[in-house]
């Protein structure tokens, strides 16, 4: 069986201790020169004057793994171990420094609930906007609209600006849109812990449906029970490297020091 996600020697370096203008300075040296010549020479000189050290940190280092179609894979690790950076690279939000990823399917990534929600727009308008930003086609959103509204339980407030929503209503709506995405590969970052207990249960149920529908899911969480329940395999990240891969229980037990 061929993998649907192939990650080979993926590394990502960040520059720290320098001004934001110099992050990525190594990669953009040529551009910076050309820009400087054209327009920003004075700005650049100013910025260089205030330059501190040029320390770098590897947020990801030689990460290699494969994911097979229909697999649900958990990613765990301490804060700063590179989980979120990995998801960001896989979601094409940021470039890797070295390495390569091949994706053999349509990807939707869910790194936060309500990405692109605008407070001044109504619930209905935000469903369309958010859906489009997450990669749904307009027709697809229209088709699933009633389902989304029913799932979020906000039908009375559809024409109200979301800035007047309670925080619970807001996250319910946001999760409802996301839950109706239909990609081949779903990348999820710790977004399930939203709403009250009954809505959380509903979310978990939905997540369970998604994982059983044959979709490939990459799932970052600190909720070990959730990982154990939803994922067959788990990747443990440590200091930007893959420290252990295997059946979820084993990896979780290892991580918790059991």
């Amino acid at each position, binding site marked *: 069986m*061929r993998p649907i996600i192939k990650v080979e020697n993926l590394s990502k370096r960040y520059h720290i201790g320098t001004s*934001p203008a110099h992050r990525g300075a190594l990669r953009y040296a040529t551009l910076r020169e050309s820009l400087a010549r054209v327009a920003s020479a004075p700005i650049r000189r100013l910025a260089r004057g205030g330059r501190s050290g040029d320390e770098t940190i590897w947020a990801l280092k030689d990460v290699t793994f494969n994911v097979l179609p229909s697999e649900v894979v958990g990613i765990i690790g301490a804060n700063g171990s590179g989980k979120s950076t990995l998801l960001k690279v896989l979601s094409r939000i940021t470039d890797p420094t070295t*390495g390569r990823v091949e994706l053999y399917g349509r990807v939707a990534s869910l790194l936060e609930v309500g990405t692109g929600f605008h407070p001044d727009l109504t619930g209905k308008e935000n469903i369309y906007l958010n859906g489009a930003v997450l990669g749904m086609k307009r027709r697809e959103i229209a088709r699933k609209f009633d389902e989304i509204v029913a799932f979020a339980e906000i039908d009375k407030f559809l024409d109200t600006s979301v800035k007047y929503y309670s925080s619970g209503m807001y996250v319910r709506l946001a999760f409802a849109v996301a839950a109706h995405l239909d990609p081949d590969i779903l990348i999820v970052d710790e977004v399930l812990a939203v709403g009250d207990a009954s809505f959380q249960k509903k979310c978990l149920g939905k997540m369970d449906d998604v994982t059983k529908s044959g979709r490939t899911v990459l799932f970052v969480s600190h909720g070990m029970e959730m990982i154990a329940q939803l994922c067959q395999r788990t990747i443990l990240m440590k200091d930007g490297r893959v420290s252990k891969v295997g059946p979820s229980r084993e990896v979780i037990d290892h991580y918790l020091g059991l």
Partner: protein
Amino acid sequence: MGAVSRTDTDGLAEPAYDSGQALYHLPEKPLVVIEPHRSWVALNLRDLWAYREVFYFLMWRDIKVRYKQTAFGIAWAIIQPLFLMFVFAFFFGKLVRVASDGAPYPIWVYVGILPWTFFSNALANGGNSLIGNSNLITKVYFPRLLIPSAAIAAGLLDFSIAFALLLAFIPFYGLGLTWGMLMLPPLVLLVTVLALAVGTWTAALNARYRDVRHALPFAIQLWMFATPIIYPLSIVPDEYRWVIALNPLTGIVEGFRAALFGWPFDWAALGFSTAVTILLLVFFVYVFRRMESSFADVI
């Protein structure tokens, strides 16, 4: 808890998953390859096309949000250029008596204000669009070029409304239809592309150097004085005229006036504006694409 019976495989080789495999017919070639940034980047038109609905929704959002919770709503599209016209007509038309090439000063200046208002708003909105959408940039992928493009394209609605008012002025000032008006669509296209070129570049610079945000209003103000909006090109002494003529907006604004008043076009100036606009577009979009992948890290 943890009613999982999946611990029987070693996970690395053949993970245990039940049904569903048959659902996938994996393509031979990957749909997406993620690699480090290369030094030469393509425009990737296919990607832009694939995400055209995001462009549409971003533009729609920018239009919707702009006049939410305002008392006058979309009327602001007219109020802004109209009041500028009154102010300029009073100070420059009446008090200073600036020449206006024979046309009535108020409508003459209004014709200049129209493309200028569109251009300056496009530059301001486009230039701040990446920063304003940083929540999208750090959380979801789509071609970033769509963000400034949508912000700039959204201004076309205001432009159309202000333009409709101009058409209402025409009989009032005893002007007729001219063949030159056929040049209006290409002129609108030209000013849009110019705004797109400068706006995307400003947006990209702004994402990395916040100095841009402070310099931008000031730069826009200066640019207005370098463009024959409130004064005609004809009163600029010959020795300074080349400065004004280097500005690609000059040919466009003069073109708008020629089109509406039935004056002869300065084809050389228009050709120069077009050439500069295309060059700027190619270069600035290239710069934008080069910087694009770092936006999420620096914004």
